[in-house]
């Protein structure tokens, strides 16, 4: 119970937790509160916020409900972020584990590929990839993951290198387990936790990258994300600033929440460790 108490003593951590809970609630309840397509045209265009009870946050250029967009956008933006982070961590951990475990030429080759991805500006790569493949949800997720998987790969490899010399791995080898089995069964699970700790940073980065891609007109037009809302709103930045400010706040809350929460958690865990 101590880490929980420790966590609750950090105001940033609690604030982060509240933000994430709020967003998660919005994301999960969106289809219930606003059933149907959030892109549907519901009312007069460019209604300012708080002017009409039916549209508490106003409407956009085509008369779509901004609140519905915001809540469905939370769903889509977080989904994109989490999906991209999962792909990045999965691929990264796999490549890193293989490289670290196999060593030698395989390691060398795989790490050169990691290097190649690391020296190419990730956003440039995402931009090229989406332009080329056409903007759809899976493509956007993959494009974001392309620029994010090298971090987990390097970390996983470093972990594996330290783990593979440990006793239980040696023991597994002695009892004649297949190297692949050792890698996936014994090494990977132990190398994973520090890699997973990266996930919050990757999710936050992915949400921002999606927004930037949407800004350049490279988002999926069939779903609403905060990025696409900001991109739409920027043409009327001066006459209807709320259209880009409201989803912008959503973005800030999400990224801030993820960071604060992960910081609070790591502090709480570190606190426990230092006491133990």
């Amino acid at each position, binding site marked *: 119970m101590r880490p929980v108490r420790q966590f609750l003593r950090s105001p940033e951590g609690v604030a982060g937790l509240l933000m994430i809970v709020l967003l998660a609630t919005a994301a999960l309840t969106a289809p219930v509160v606003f059933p149907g397509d959030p892109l*549907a*045209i519901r009312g007069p265009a460019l209604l300012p916020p708080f002017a009409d009870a039916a549209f508490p946050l106003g409407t956009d250029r085509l008369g779509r409900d901004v609140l519905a967009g915001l809540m469905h956008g939370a769903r889509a933006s977080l989904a994109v972020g989490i999906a991209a982070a999962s792909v990045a961590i999965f691929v990264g951990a796999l490549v890193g584990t293989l490289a670290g475990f196999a060593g030698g030429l395989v390691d060398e080759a795989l790490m050169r590929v990691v290097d190649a991805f690391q020296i190419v500006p990730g956003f440039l790569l995402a931009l090229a990839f989406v332009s*080329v493949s056409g903007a759809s949800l899976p493509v956007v997720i993959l494009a974001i993951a392309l620029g994010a998987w090298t971090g987990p790969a390097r970390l996983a490899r470093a972990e594996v290198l330290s783990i593979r010399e440990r006793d239980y791995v040696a023991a597994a080898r002695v009892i004649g387990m297949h190297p692949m089995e050792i890698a996936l069964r014994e090494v990977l699970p132990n190398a994973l936790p520090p890699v997973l700790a990266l996930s919050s940073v990757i999710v936050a980065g992915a949400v921002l990258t999606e927004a930037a891609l949407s800004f350049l*007109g490279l988002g999926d*037009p069939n779903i609403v994300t905060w990025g696409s809302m900001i991109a739409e709103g920027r043409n009327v930045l*001066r*006459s209807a600033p709320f259209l880009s400010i409201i989803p912008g706040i959503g973005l800030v809350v999400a990224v801030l929440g993820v960071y604060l929460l992960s910081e609070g958690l790591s502090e709480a865990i570190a606190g426990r460790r230092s006491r133990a």
Partner: protein
Amino acid sequence: MTRFPLSRRRLLTSTALLLASAGLPARALAQDGKRLVVAADSEPKNLNPAIVASNGVFFIASKVIEPLAEASFAGPDGLEPRLATAWEGSADGRSVTFTLREGVTWHDRKPFTSADVAFSALEVWKKLQNLGRLVFANLEAVETPDERTAVFKFSVPTPFQLIRNALPVVTSVLPRHLYEGTDIEANPANASLVGTGPFKFAEHKPGEYYRLEKNQDYWGEGQPKLDEIVFRVLPDRAAAAGALEADEIQLAAFSQVPLADLERISKVEGIEVYSKGYEALTYQLVVEINHRRKELADLKVRQAIAHAIDRDFVVKTIFLGYAVPSTGIVPKNAPEFYEAGVTTYAFDPARANALLDEAGYKRAGNGTRFSLKLLPAPYFSETRQFGDYLRQALAAIGIDAEIVNNDAAAHQKAVYTDHDFDLAVAPPVFRGDPAISTTILVKGGVPAGVPFSNQGGYANPAIDEIIEKANKTVDVAARTDLFRQFQKLVAEDLPLINVAEWGFITVARTSVKNVSSNPRWAVSNWADTDLES
């Protein structure tokens, strides 16, 4: 190995360029001169309007290279003279005689003569230009009895009406002495233009600007008024409005300031909004249909889609009133050809639903009749927004449309080469005569890969016959009548759906004078445009 020194030199010069970038003196300019700074959202690499007849090129090149005649609000047949002072077609449609202006010199001081026109027509317009290839397909020879006369000879009768209507777009005259005997498409003068226009091409800094300077020897009395025009490359459309307000630029044409921002900016002190000056550059908002889809090959389904679109909503909300609803394939802005008496499709979702039921496409359990792939052209924010709207309008009649968001090159390929679409939103431009614009959208037998043409697999012998006949009809009244019949046929059979037609908006500082003074103003020569300090 042999090329290594060259490459190394290239590398060295480039590096030197980089190092020198901090110390390189920029070209001096008389700061007291009248400099007009204009926003440009694209940066054409080939600036030659005689080869590339597109508005992006004309926007810049029209100030340097002039056509034989320009569009006009007041002139006879909607034209006013430029390099030609008179033009006349023969009764048999086999020749057109141009009388050329006297005392015109090229920017390199060589005289302008009928030989320049003959060379441009035969070697450039007829062979290389995207539109000239159609208009001058049967041009056989250009006779030049004297320096001021050029007689175009056609092997088969060619309607003078078509030539006349095409004059502003297809007849940019190039200097023969710079192009003859060279690879015309690779000529350096395509990037560094030499013409007869009121402005001389000065420089192009890639990614930054094009600069034009006053032509002191221009034939127009007391023209041009400006000393310099700078086209500032501003790729982000939201940036133009800010730059105008900060007086960093004085003019933004082609709706570079987003429509939604016009109401606000029109109230800003010192800024004026012009909706005139694009009458001869009417863009049409069109739903292209792939007739290979069995549902869409059914006329009832096409009618249902036409009834599902609320044109008033499109005009009011997407175009904020800066457009008019379309009735057919020829825009109202072309009164010479426009036919009002065509079948129209009022906004009527109930009727649309009934038509779909009749056609046998009942709603399934989830309320959907069938699914479609919708590709809005990415060139304008309005085409994209209309795509978003159309998806909703179709949902209301039980058609589930999935929007595919492509960039320009991919859209081009998907629609016009691969036919990988069911519905597409396109913004074709009406170029003064149906023969060089709208007809290609419905004509059968166009090979795959021709952009902005009928790639929906539609073929209607009756329509093709009229188009064919009009191309050979010399008599103006008879030809016009054919195009009126053509409009009726198209509206009845709906090979595509015309939704709205629009011209662009120019926003300028009030200090800029004589804006929007002709129907192609943005792409005309700006000889009389002035700047008051």
